[in-house]
């Protein structure tokens, strides 16, 4: 039972940071940035490549995360801001195009074979009869720390207050003297950093290959949408729900229901079930479970 909870939590950790980034960016930029999943892959791959050049792990991760954040800002400045002037749907297709270019870039630079951090192997620890490995604990700690920092920034500082004001009513925020353009740049930087950290957290637990970004796309989107796009902390709940559905479907024995001893769904159906959960949830609440935006008439 406890193992089940750990599995859910570990899967949620994979999705959470990227989903929070996506929701945060949506709250200010008003378009879902598909390229964010590729920022996650970039963070993971870059950290591994930097470590191979001889840097200590911590410094490699820090560099990779910061570089990805900068990349996010640059792309936003030169591409997404211009596309947004045409429309949010256009910007969404544009971000799809950018993530294709990322895929191509990975193919050419890193190649199709997966890579991993060079780390000493360790025996899994047993906590309440659940097996947890040290890298898993480490990546959990990274995710928890990142969420904590973001929550502090978002709810306890002036900067966070300005961001929330901008996301609620941009025109009013502008009129009160908030530099909304600067707020947008900052939130893009934060989302890039969060996504890259998410990628690093995944890379710590296992391998990273160039498909990672596109594989993350739907589960991350499902989490962010389920939580209500634009509400970064709804995304946490969304990620937990999606990972719960994914893990439960494969861990539950449907045998007794069908009159057999054991009957498990194939693992491949895990994601199918979570997507159907997303569709069902949207039928019931079209703007996600926890909508933070004020809807005006």
């Amino acid at each position: 039972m406890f193992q089940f909870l750990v599995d859910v939590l570990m899967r949620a950790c994979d999705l959470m940071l990227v989903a929070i980034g996506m929701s945060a960016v949506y709250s200010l930029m008003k378009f879902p940035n598909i390229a964010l999943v590729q920022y996650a892959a970039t963070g993971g791959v870059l950290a591994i490549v930097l470590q191979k050049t001889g840097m200590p792990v911590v410094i490699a991760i820090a560099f990779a995360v910061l570089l990805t954040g900068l990349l996010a800002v640059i792309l936003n400045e030169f591409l997404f801001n211009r596309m947004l002037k045409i429309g949010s749907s256009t910007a969404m297709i544009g971000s799809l195009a950018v993530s294709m270019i990322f895929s191509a870039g990975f193919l050419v630079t890193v190649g199709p074979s997966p890579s991993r951090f060079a780390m000493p192997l360790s025996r899994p620890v047993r906590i309440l009869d659940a097996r947890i490995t040290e890298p898993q604990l480490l990546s959990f700690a990274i995710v928890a720390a990142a969420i904590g920092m973001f929550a502090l920034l978002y709810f306890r500082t002036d900067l966070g207050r300005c961001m929330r004001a901008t996301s609620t009513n941009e025109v009013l925020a502008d009129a009160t003297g908030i530099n909304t353009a600067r707020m947008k740049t900052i939130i893009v930087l934060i989302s890039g950093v969060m996504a890259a950290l998410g990628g690093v957290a995944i890379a710590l637990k296992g391998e990273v290959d160039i498909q990672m970004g596109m594989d993350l796309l739907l589960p991350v989107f499902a989490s962010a949408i389920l939580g209500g796009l634009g509400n970064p902390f709804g995304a946490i709940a969304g990620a937990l729900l999606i990972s719960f559905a994914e893990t439960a479907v494969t861990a539950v024995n449907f045998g007794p229901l069908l009159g057999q001893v054991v009957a498990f769904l194939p693992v491949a159906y895990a994601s199918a079930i979570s997507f159907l959960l997303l569709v069902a949830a949207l039928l019931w609440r079209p703007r996600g479970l926890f909508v933070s935006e004020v809807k005006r008439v």
Partner: protein
Amino acid sequence: MSDFIVHVTIMSGLYALLALSLNLQAGFGGLMNFGQIGLFACGLYGAAIAFQFDLSAISGFAFAIVAAALLGWAFASVGRNLQADYWGIVTLALAEVIRIIATNEDWLTGGAQGIGGIRPFYFDLDSQTRQIAILFTVLALVLAAALLCRHLIGGRYGLSIKIMREEPQLAASLGYNTITLKRQLMAVSSVLAAISGFLFAHYISFAGPEQIDSSETFLIWAMIVVGGLGNNIGAIVGAFLLQFAFAFIPFVKDWIGLPTEYVAAGRLFLTGGGLIIFILWRQSGIVPERVGGGRYV
């Protein structure tokens, strides 16, 4: 060499049907469908499953059309009160669910190996004449589809979906039922996509899950954006342009002497780069949408 050109032209024609279908939805109706390949899958597997269970091609065709129209209807119904970007992700998720089912239900779809050996059209002709016959069939169908699209768009129905795209609330206030319009539009355009899938299965003699990957949807999107959103000729131009460009990437690779990974990377660069360039510098595409004119009722 001329065999090769014929093959590429047939493939372009099949993609042109898909592009015309997506153009009806996205270009004229403003529906952000990211699950186009799911509609194609209905046609592809309709043909393959009919073959596997020794049914006639006609019954496979009927099954394909009905399944696609129902799926299109379902897409529109799910999206009846969703925002455009939410709906885009939902359709992407549903198409992915279809792919997962196709990969795992071995008894029905042949699983990951797919269904091979599907009897091609014009079976009794020798292979060269057969290719030419298929070429003319496909080109005739593209022409017929283009005429159908022109007929739909030129009339009252075309005006109503365009007003739904531009001003949904105005359309509703004029007495148009936008949900019905969307459902009709999705059902009609789905049939075009299913015809393309049906022909594809009989032409390639194979149906497998890798043919219905979401990246194909993104490719079709690139075709209509490059060709010109909201223009039927543009959709056809975009499909032929990208297919022919793709066909010559391997030759360019050999000519420069690059490794094989560069073919896949080149396709991604071309699709993503084409999308970005056209979004930023020529938003209306190669053949822009014609505003006004035509035979209005």
